[in-house]
């Protein structure tokens, strides 16, 4: 158990790195996607819808292969496995998070929008000063659950050779043939790494429901 853990620990940094970097990409790209999808004009809405649907309709592992073997293996562009995993998972989760953002934006009462119009705030200012601060808090609990999903999907990066927990477990198993032990520890490691996110989700949920009850 001790030796398994110390070998798999070599992959923990990579797993956490991929998860956090991809989540950052997703959190940044997801918001504009959500805002575009709420636009009044279909020419603005349509591209955002297509991007989100296509990103989600293809399995993550196919995206990683496309990005690593096809886009990232040309003379002009050489991506590392880490970069390819971050780009691929980041884009996929941007699509997922855009749905969470959209739900958050929808949760802001219509009266708030009407108030910004009554005050003649430009649309950008209305978003930045009134709508987003209210929407983003609502989004925290679903964001945390998506972060856990992303943590688990990061295991797929091992298939293109990123040296994460799963990769280390496969390597170790090829040496010691103890798949039973190695993958049990690997699974438990992922579950343990997900706990902080679950705590965040729960905490935010509690604050939110208290606020709703208090209001």
């Amino acid at each position: 158990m001790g030796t398994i853990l110390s070998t798999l620990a070599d992959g923990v940094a990579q797993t956490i790195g991929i998860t956090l970097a991809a989540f950052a990409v997703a959190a940044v790209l997801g918001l504009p996607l959500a805002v575009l999808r709420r636009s009044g004009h279909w020419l603005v809405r349509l591209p955002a819808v297509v991007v989100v649907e296509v990103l989600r309709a293809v399995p993550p592992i196919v995206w990683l292969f496309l990005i690593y073997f096809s886009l990232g293996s040309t003379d002009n562009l050489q991506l590392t496995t880490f970069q390819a995993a971050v780009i691929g998972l980041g884009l996929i989760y941007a699509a997922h998070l855009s749905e969470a953002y959209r739900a958050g934006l929808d949760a802001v009462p219509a009266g708030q929008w009407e108030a910004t119009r009554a005050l003649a705030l430009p649309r950008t200012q209305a978003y930045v000063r009134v709508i987003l601060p209210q929407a983003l808090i609502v989004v925290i609990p679903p964001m945390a659950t998506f972060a856990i999903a992303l943590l688990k999907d990061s295991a797929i990066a091992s298939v293109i050779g990123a040296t994460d927990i799963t990769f280390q477990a496969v390597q170790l198993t090829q040496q010691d043939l103890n798949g039973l032990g190695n993958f049990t520890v690997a699974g438990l490691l992922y579950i343990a790494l997900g706990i902080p996110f679950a705590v965040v989700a729960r905490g935010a949920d509690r604050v939110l429901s208290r606020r709703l009850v208090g209001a």
Partner: protein
Amino acid sequence: MSTLNEWQDYLPDYLDGLKVTLRLTGVSLAGGLPLGLLLALAMTARRRTVRWPAILLVEIGRGAPALVVLYFVYYGLPQLDLTWSSFVCAAIALGFTTAAYTADIFRAGINSIPVGHREACQALGLSHGQELRLVVLPQAIRVVIPPLIGFCILLYQGTSLAFAVSVPELLSRAYSQASITYQFTSTLVLAGLVYAAISLSAVALMRARWPGRTASVTDVEPPGEGLARTTEVTHAP
């Protein structure tokens, strides 16, 4: 033009791969759905000794990456003299993951039935089995169908993980074509298109049938939720 010609060459092989993908999806569902329902019933049982093992299994199935579960079955179980083909290993691993996820969906459906219905069953003197069969499940199934279909689409995509244990499914075919021709772009794009075509038409069909829902792949509650909710299993008084 040349890409289209290439695609024409790949297509028969890909369709064979698609058959394996669909068979894997079907077998995983056939094993996973009944097990998921059983786990859900166990999770809502009154007795602790029934409830806790079920909750533990579901948390493991939802908490560990499906790929790790797959490797566990493929590399680990042979140590216990349980050796199967890679297809069977993939079906077992994905079936278990299916059971864990759908258990949570079924449980949510069961819990959505108003307590009054269960009280009414007790007042009428129905047995526990009758209560489930005649009152609870028929209502729960209806609530549960849209998220279940969402999960099926996820599972269909998830079968691509079986590539990692070299099941000859769609992605494996694409990859082996690529390693022969070195045309990674055209081979993988075609694979992506085949996956997307089926996923998107399933989503579209579902939206047509249940317009109220934003029926899509993410309609399934994102995993991990269960971790925060295990303590909330409640019971009718």
